[in-house]
């Protein structure tokens, strides 16, 4: 048996898929990322030419990258949820909740930094756990369950804060503020560094662990996954809970930069989901890329910053962002159609 096995293995590289049958799905996914990346490069070049002071290190790192961080962290966390075919609308206001939790722990309760951070991450985990419980154990539709949680996340920060006052963690607690504005690497904000580290962790989770494998298999065929002996409910619960930890990371980075505000992050859920979709992750589930979500977040960051530098009014910025998302989804549809024809 082992002898013949060797033959089987060796045979493989000799037989590349015939070009006439079209490209492999793996290659197509790469191309999709490449298309998003090309889009990022094109709009970056556009704003560099059209807008003054866009293509400077200071603007690119301290404005574009830093402002992409929150969307990016939410996007990579919620990629897992979207890969299962679910959706999480509570992530944006989750920033307000977890940020306010951090403020309460560190300033109001005066806990040490490490403990405060740990407890904040636990609050995020709990938020995700409740979402996961409602969706996978109680069987609620993800859209409704997380929409309700979004309202909870909108209200709770006001409840625990002092009449909705911002807790200025950024100025009152310098070591905490350093999480965002500090520079472990010279002239490179820690927030961006943390974002990159989280992205690497998420990439490993999605592509190299059973956590990611089951997220994809659940999104691809939930019934087959269950028939393969996988406890689908348990894994869905874990996936939502882990997404909650990413939300807490975003909450920490947000409150370290601008303080714990009860309205921080509201509305970012849609930008994060848009980033995921622009990156090539399918809202139907079963297919997702972390690199794509990072690129998607950068595209939104570049657009936000570039349009602002060019003096485009805020209301038009929304319109343009909407059009970009529509275009990304349409291009994805075209690509799917063409691959079916081939």
């Amino acid at each position: 048996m082992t002898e013949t096995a060797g033959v089987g293995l060796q045979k493989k590289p000799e037989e590349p898929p015939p070009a006439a049958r079209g490209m492999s799905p793996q290659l197509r996914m790469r191309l999709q990322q490449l298309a998003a990346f090309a889009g990022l490069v094109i709009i970056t070049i556009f704003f560099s030419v059209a807008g003054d002071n866009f293509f400077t290190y200071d603007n690119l790192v301290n404005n574009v990258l830093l402002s992409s961080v929150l969307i990016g962290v939410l996007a990579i966390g919620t990629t897992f949820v979207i890969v299962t075919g679910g959706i999480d609308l509570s992530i944006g206001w989750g920033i307000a909740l977890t940020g306010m939790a951090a403020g309460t722990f560190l300033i109001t309760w005066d806990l040490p930094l490490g403990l405060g951070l740990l407890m904040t991450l636990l609050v995020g985990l709990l938020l995700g756990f409740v979402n996961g419980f409602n969706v996978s154990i109680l069987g609620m539709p993800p859209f409704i369950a997380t929409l309700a949680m979004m309202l909870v996340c909108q209200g709770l920060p006001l409840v625990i804060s002092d009449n909705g006052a911002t807790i200025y963690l950024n100025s009152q607690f310098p070591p905490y503020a350093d999480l965002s504005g500090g520079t472990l690497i010279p002239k490179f904000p820690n927030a961006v560094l943390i974002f990159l580290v989280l992205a690497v962790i998420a990439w490993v989770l999605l592509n190299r662990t059973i956590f990611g494998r089951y997220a994809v298999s659940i999104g691809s065929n939930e019934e087959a996954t269950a028939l393969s002996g996988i406890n689908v409910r348990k894994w869905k619960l874990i996936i939502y809970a882990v997404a909650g930890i990413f939300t807490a990371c975003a909450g920490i980075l947000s409150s370290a930069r601008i303080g714990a505000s009860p309205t921080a992050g509201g509305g970012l859920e849609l930008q994060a989901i848009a980033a995921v979709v622009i990156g090539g992750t399918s809202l139907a589930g079963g297919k997702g890329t972390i690199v794509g979500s990072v690129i998607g977040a950068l595209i939104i960051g570049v657009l936000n910053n570039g349009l602002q530098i060019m003096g485009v009014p805020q209301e038009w910025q929304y319109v343009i962002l909407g059009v970009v998302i529509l275009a990304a989804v349409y291009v994805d549809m075209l690509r799917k159609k063409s691959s079916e024809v081939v």
Partner: protein
Amino acid sequence: MTDQPILRLRGVNKSFGAVHVLDDVDFEAYAGKVTALVGDNGAGKSTLVKCIGGTYPIDSGSYEFDGSPVHVSGPRDAAALGVEIVYQDLALCENLDVVQNMFLGRERMRGVVLDEESMEIAASQTLTSLSVRTLKSVRQRVSSLSGGQRQTVAIAKAALWKSRVVILDEPTAALGVAQTAQVLDLVRRLADQGVAVILISHNMLDVLQVADRIAVLYLGRMAATVDRADVNQTQVVELITTGRSGDLGIQPATASAGVSI
């Protein structure tokens, strides 16, 4: 061949409310043999398979595995015994590749990360041992495979797990002629590896070509279990449609004995 069946059901009854779906059914599956389970729609094939697979607990009767009675109260119990069901259409994840599908739920790990290399080698070995040559690459996604190739992967998945009993639910439905031949070859090779294969099929040609034994269900009762060599197609079709054929099958009640030929 061994005389003792791996799987033996005796006097199995199963009712859903007032409907008596399985009536005192006996059924055996032997290592290295393909046992075809045939019967018309509503004869109770699916119910019997779900009883074997643990989805439906049996009302009465005995479920014996390797000669000793076992209690199967759920799919996990059946899987633990080594009973694997290959479903007709929902067995695979389209967005995963062949290796990922074959190992789904039983991934090999190296520390906390997946051991892709070892899984790829094991999957290739299994496919090679089954003489599967229709797959270009084990890293192809299932979405790019034909129906026959998908069935091949699903069957190979069962083989990879050293299953003792593999139940194939209509594996050739919706397949072309060439692909059907390939899948039937695969069924034969799976049995040759010592697996007890249970083949459910509506296609008489498939059954007669690949089966060693044929079990015919008729209205919830086991009309006959015959050796392939002892019957022809006409007899099997008669058994399926009327429950009897000559001396085979359910004999008419003693009161109307004169009817028999």
